[in-house]
């Protein structure tokens, strides 16, 4: 070989970024639920331009506070009233006063807002008793652990479950566990034990551990729901996992049970337990 010439000229900018505009849509979003034995809660908001900033300056454009919200079942009907509770986001929501959820009943929802009428219905299925609730310490880190639930799944139907937890004196409301939604496709008619992972409070919150610290007192809310609710919440959890990952997003919208809008109206059959992490 005569000679080998190597000249390194390198002006490489492998990854760089720039902004781009996308079109806007405006739909009404319902986030409503009614627990067996509990009041109905309906949060109403609007979809926003993808890149718009949400802060106190445009809060009332995003949150719907001028709607008429009615729920009814076979023997009762009620117009919900606007309430405010700073524990929640958004803090404004509509709440029932007299109607409380009952197992086996169908609950209709009607929202009139901005001249649009939005309807939905949900069923509260029979609750599922949990056979066994226990805390199990992590093998690597004994200061933390998971909560395990054991249930006897009935064989004669497809069951859809969702779990929430609230740490006593640390959290002021129930939060869905991580991967909170499950159906009995893989354990129909059998006794099954599965772990509960501590849920993130929001997907902009990135620091929370999925295990429960030893010493916490945890309230577990184990719910049953209908198929439409299951389909929405399954999609919701998929979106939580993948939505922010440029290589993971799948571009599928959540399957909603709201006619004329998007979101979900869920009825839950509820079993509640308290576990001390020790």
């Amino acid at each position: 070989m005569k000679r080998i010439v190597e000249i390194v000229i390198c002006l490489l900018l492998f990854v760089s970024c720039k902004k781009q505009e996308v079109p806007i849509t405006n739909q009404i979003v319902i986030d409503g639920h009614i627990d067996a034995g509990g009041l109905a809660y309906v949060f109403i908001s609007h979809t926003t331009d993808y890149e718009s900033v949400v802060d106190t300056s445009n809060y009332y454009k995003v949150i719907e506070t001028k709607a008429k919200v009615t729920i009814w079942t076979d023997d009762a009907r009620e117009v919900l009233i606007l309430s405010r509770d700073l524990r929640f986001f958004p803090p404004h929501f509509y709440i029932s006063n007299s109607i409380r959820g009952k197992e086996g009943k169908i609950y209709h929802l009607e929202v009139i807002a901005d001249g649009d009428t939005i309807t939905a219905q949900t069923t509260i299925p029979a609750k599922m008793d949990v056979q066994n609730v226990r805390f199990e310490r992590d093998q690597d880190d004994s200061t933390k652990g998971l909560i395990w639930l054991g249930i006897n799944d009935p064989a004669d139907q497809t069951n859809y479950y969702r779990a929430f937890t609230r740490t006593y004196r640390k959290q002021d409301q129930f939060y869905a566990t991580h991967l909170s939604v499950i159906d009995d496709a893989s354990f129909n008619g059998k006794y099954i034990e599965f772990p509960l992972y501590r849920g993130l409070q929001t997907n902009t919150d990135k620091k929370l551990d999925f295990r429960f610290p030893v010493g916490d007192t945890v309230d577990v809310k184990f719910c049953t729901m209908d198929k439409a609710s299951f389909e929405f919440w399954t999609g919701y959890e998929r979106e939580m996992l993948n939505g922010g990952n440029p290589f993971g997003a799948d571009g599928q919208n959540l399957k909603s049970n709201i006619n004329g809008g998007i979101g979900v109206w869920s009825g839950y059959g509820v079993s509640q337990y308290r576990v001390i992490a020790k």
Partner: protein
Amino acid sequence: MQKVLLFILFIVFSTASFSQTISGFVIDSINGEPLPGANIIDLASKNQCASDSKGFFRFKVHSNATISVSFIGYKPFSKSIQIKSDTVISIGLKIASTTLQEVSVSGTSSANNPQQVTYLNSTKITKIPSMLGESDVVKMLATTPGVKQVEGQQGFNVRGSSQDQNLILYDEAIIYNCSHLLGMYSVFNTNAVQNVSFYKTGIPARYGGRLASAMIIEGNGGSMNHWDNHASIGLLASNLSFSGPIVKDKCSFSLSARRSYIDKIILPIIHHYIDNSISDYKNGYFFQDFNAKLIAKLNNNNKLELSTYIGDDTFMLSNPKNELSNDLKWGNEAASIKWRHLFNDKLSCSQSLAWSRNFLEYKVGQYMYTMDMKTTIQTLRFKSDWLLLINDNPLRFGVEAMKHTYNPNNIDAKVKEISLDFGKSTTLQALESAAFIEYTVNIGTKLSIIPGMRYSLFTQLGPYTSYESNAVGKTIDSILYASGKPVTTYSFPEPKLTASYVINGNNSVKTSATYNVQYNHLIPIISSALPTDMWLPSMKGIKPQKAIQIAGGYYKTKPKYTFSLEAYYKKMYDVSEAAGTMLNFYDSKDISTVVAQGKGEAYGAEISFEKIVGKCTFGISYAYSRSFRTFETLNYGKTFPTKYDKPHDLSITGSYQISKHWSISSLFSYTSGVNLTMPVSRYFIQNNIINVYGSKNGYRMPAYHRADVAVKYILTDKSRFQSDLTLSVSNIYNHHNPYYMYYIISGSLKEYELKVEMQKVYLFPILPSLTYNIHF
């Protein structure tokens, strides 16, 4: 003439017959390798033909024939021959100028050949600047109309079809993924490629199992009589190959190896100087591949070929700030043995056995989750291919049998150290077989017709458990199929017809109508540009894909230029797309539920002009094409464009030989942007942000355009040693072609302040590269 242009190597055969037919081979006079697509004309009778992929030709001539042979990049040959009987000759052509191994479009089928085939070989003719100093077959193909390559994407798209609809054979082994490094290079090291035949329309009956195209690659087996070694050292990759005789005129070999080292040299520099200020993302990648081939000429009638290929890629993308990481490793392994036998001058055959495997390992981590996914496909393929000449017309027939093994989804997911149950991994097996026959009929001197028929059979084999569900989707029964037992069988006749009519010596019209069936499906798991795809067989619940294509065109071939105008319409049935996402897999015991099937439609027109002779050569090609899908279960049943539906596609290539030492080449390409499904708005549910996605593939990214220029300086040009230095600059005007777009969220709902920003990821800015090549 300064050098000898021709030698008639041997006159093998002659019979006492009154019909004067001349047949033989056009070969490279130096290495004896066949030259496919060479134009052979008898100036006395004006009859002409083109050599096939083995360099073979056969046609009727005048008894006082003047045979003229031309082949782009070689010095033309012409000689008067008195022919008294059928004659077989070999014509050796001498390369026009000293060249090094570069891939180029070396020709298309001649006017009277109905098959519309593009031949490439490893000899330089039309130069295109090589990306980062490596010339590439797929890049070269992408400059022909109707073939599109999306930057950063695997494979290539032919006439509105997805990349899995291309049949790619490397020495008879099926290559399931032909791309390295975000599509920057194909897996085919140019030094390891002897020649390529590419069919985008009228795919012959002997090639099947894919809807869109067939790319048949013959590996370089080395010359039986001289050494041919090559080394190149570039900024980002190096290449080394040796080939030559083991036993002169009996046995030859070829070894080639390549590795990129972008991870060793360039990335540390980027990270040191640029990364922190530009992006939170860290990435890295490299690829490597190795080819080996051995050819043994047992005697004049028997030849044995052994070939192997191993190659893989590693890609990493992470954002430490968001605790996000993606790691991918993918690659191919292939090995084959082929025996060619010549019974007599009328009958020959080749028998081959090939094994290949494609794998992908994908690790994704986000916050506390890790997911490890593996998917593989492997195929054992046997093919028996026969060629019989009946009245000088070739009759080809044979059989093909394949055993496929699929491991579509091996998933291991964890949250911290806790494993999530994604069920057992699935292994699927299938047998694919086919019989084929095709015959060329010449009606008069102007019309040629090739009717062909392929009959294919596909059987999914056990072990397999099939689940029966009731109306509400509840599993009510399961059927267990034992190992080797047939689960489902599909079979289809696949008729084909191609025809050509020669208007006069240089002008012809060609048309084809084909019905193709594809039994293997590539399902994209996520909508990313990375090869995060899995192969699935046609099975219970997944039907084979079918396509009807009608195409026609006008072709003009002059000694100095070629022109073509083509149009096509393609209708596809049961084409597949992903029905859900990776995370849906654990819900479904039945893997067939991850596939959605629907209809497809593609149509377009292509025009190309090439000046192929002279110091200055150039080519212009433009294609207008559309590609749509309609699925009951996707996009609310509405028709949507495919991701690679890119209506406009323009490519201009040019090269100029400035002097004996200096040459320059350039490439400009412009295509419409790819389509993505993007969020159009968002909302909040239980403190969380949810995206509202627009219609499927409803957002078209800005148009893609880029110009590349390369300057080559020949340092040494001796018969035993040549060297050159090539400076190539990709994307010379540094256009930021977006590769992917996504959003990042900052702030918090609880704090009543939330921002979402769209991010565009650019892959390749201006990329200069210097390569030192030696050839000895």
